[in-house]
């Protein structure tokens, strides 16, 4: 595990404690190692039969594992990148490559002490290097471990293109976004069905003169309230986040929470939303962003915060910016500090080979010249082994 990479302050909080989830796999791994090698032989060199992220290790780096097709809609109703969703539809299967950055974060999560404040991870890298896919891989690990997943697919969607902006009923200086909030609540309900009846509210919430949620009601009721009454959905989102933050750390709660946010730099950037008098709205004045920032602080325990930067959807940032300092800005970096930065780079040679063989296997590389050495060298040259460029290149070849 790359402990030397953790910033100094964090090293004191994440102490080495008994491994929680590797114990099951570790004992079996030795016995199964021989069997799995022989089982993988007839399959292929770029696929692995190890579909459980908890049992994947360094020897699976570069290999593709399959996400179960029946559960994709529940696991990732809104989390996967657009091009990847098209690929899943075309190939009739969802295969994700096991890569080093995701494995690092998963191993940190396996060994972390959950009575200490939540560790924060940040995936950063050049455009198209695989940050969102690494985030989805980690989220899959968290779901298979039975954690509650709070997945915000793209924080940039909350600070731009807002069709309806209401002044917040709770706090006069803030603004509500009913459409985005109700959309997110619907997807949250799909992902975490089984937690909605188990978690109970700790406080009485009053929405309007006649609507309120009593103490001790299941979380599902709160979420339904937000979806049906769209006007108060942003406040419901805030209430849901507060409840989960309070309860995840308690030993009797029995669940862990993973907060996964993509495009985290949106929270501290600028927004293109304007008030009626054409003055710009800063992200702090939006209820959704304000509540999400409270989640990002490491004052709660019993879970982890996994984030990824994104320059593609960001506003007023140069396209060459990809480092955390540049994209988060001073304010963002100071609020996220201390965090574990994880660099996601372009494909290595082995990973490129694996991707190339996968596309050949799925009959995606159709041009006769792509099967030759010359064509392969040209693909490497044109894409520079960048995952998204390679994908777009192979799409029409």
């Amino acid at each position: 595990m790359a402990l030397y990479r953790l910033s100094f302050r964090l090293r004191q909080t994440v102490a080495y404690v008994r491994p929680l989830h590797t114990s099951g796999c570790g004992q079996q791994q030795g016995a199964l190692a021989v069997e799995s090698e022989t089982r993988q032989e007839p399959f292929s060199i770029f696929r692995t039969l190890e579909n459980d992220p908890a049992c994947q290790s360094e020897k699976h780096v570069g290999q593709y594992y399959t996400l179960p097709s029946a559960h994709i809609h529940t696991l990732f109703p809104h989390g996967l990148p657009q091009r990847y969703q098209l690929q899943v539809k075309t190939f009739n299967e969802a295969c994700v490559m096991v890569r080093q950055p995701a494995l690092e974060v998963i191993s940190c999560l396996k060994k972390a002490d959950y009575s200490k404040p939540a560790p924060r991870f940040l995936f950063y890298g050049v455009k198209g290097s695989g940050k969102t896919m690494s985030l989805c891989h980690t989220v899959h690990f968290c779901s298979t471990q039975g954690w509650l997943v709070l997945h915000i697919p793209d924080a940039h969607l909350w600070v731009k293109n807002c069709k309806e902006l209401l002044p917040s009923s709770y706090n006069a200086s803030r603004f509500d976004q009913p459409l985005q909030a109700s959309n997110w609540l619907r997807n949250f309900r799909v992902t975490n069905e089984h937690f909605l009846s188990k978690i109970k509210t700790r406080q009485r919430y009053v929405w309007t003169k006649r609507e309120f949620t009593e103490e001790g009601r299941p979380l599902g009721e709160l979420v339904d309230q937000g979806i049906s009454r769209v006007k108060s959905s942003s406040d419901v989102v805030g209430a849901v986040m507060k409840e989960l933050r309070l309860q995840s750390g308690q030993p009797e709660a029995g669940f862990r929470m993973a907060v996964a946010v993509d495009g985290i730099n949106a929270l501290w950037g600028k927004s293109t939303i304007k008030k009626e008098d054409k003055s710009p709205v800063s992200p702090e004045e939006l209820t959704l962003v304000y509540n999400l920032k409270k989640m990002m602080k490491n004052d709660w325990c019993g879970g982890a915060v996994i984030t990824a930067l994104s320059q593609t959807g960001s506003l007023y940032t140069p396209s060459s910016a990809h480092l955390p300092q540049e994209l988060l800005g001073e304010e963002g970096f100071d609020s996220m500090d201390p965090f574990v930065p994880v660099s996601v780079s372009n494909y290595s040679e082995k990973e490129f080979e694996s991707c190339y063989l996968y596309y050949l296997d799925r009959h995606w590389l159709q041009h006769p010249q792509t099967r030759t050495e010359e064509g392969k060298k040209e693909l490497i040259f044109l894409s520079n082994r960048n995952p998204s460029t390679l994908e777009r290149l192979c799409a029409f070849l």
Partner: protein
Amino acid sequence: MAASIIGLLKPWTPRVVLVRWNRYNPYYLEPEIRKEVYNIPETELTAEEKEQRELKALRPIKAATNGMTSSVFSDPVLSKFVNMMMKGGDKVLAKSIMTQTMENIKRKQVEKYHKAPEEKREEIECNPYAIFHQALDNCKPVIGLASIQKGGKFYQVPIPLTDNRRRFLAMKWIITECRENKHRRTHLYEKLSQELLAASVKEGNVIKKKHELHKMAEANRAYAHYRWW
């Protein structure tokens, strides 16, 4: 070479202008783009090729156009189609529409392939380039009509077509059909992919148009002797 228009330049005229003509002195030689030609060792060249090489070292060479690439994936027929689709000199847009069309065709075919049972899989053609060439071949008319004047009246006379003319007509029909006869709100790459997939199995409006041309030529067989070349 180009006429000097420096004297006519006003302050607002851009100093670098595009030229529409491309007239080189016949002294200039054509550029050689293909990589394989330069990899042949000295011994395997014939006498003429050695002479040609020495000439190239002395004579000036024309500039290669932007459309020529030494890439292994380049296809002259496809480049011609992209040029015909281009409007206002925007090759970037035309090329991107072409690549999106290829991707669209491939996606539809590969999806069909993966969902089909084992026996049907061999019949499904997934290569968009093969589909494109097949569709183009299916759309090429065998015989054309020319308007010839005889005795004050104009007759539609069936004439043989050269290979270039046939390819041009096929491409022109595909592009005009996609631009005009489809639903307004669909993207051009979507319209093109539908038309190309239909043409590769000999269905669709372009094939119908080709058949109508053949029927007209067959109907006007009597006037064939009006052709004097």
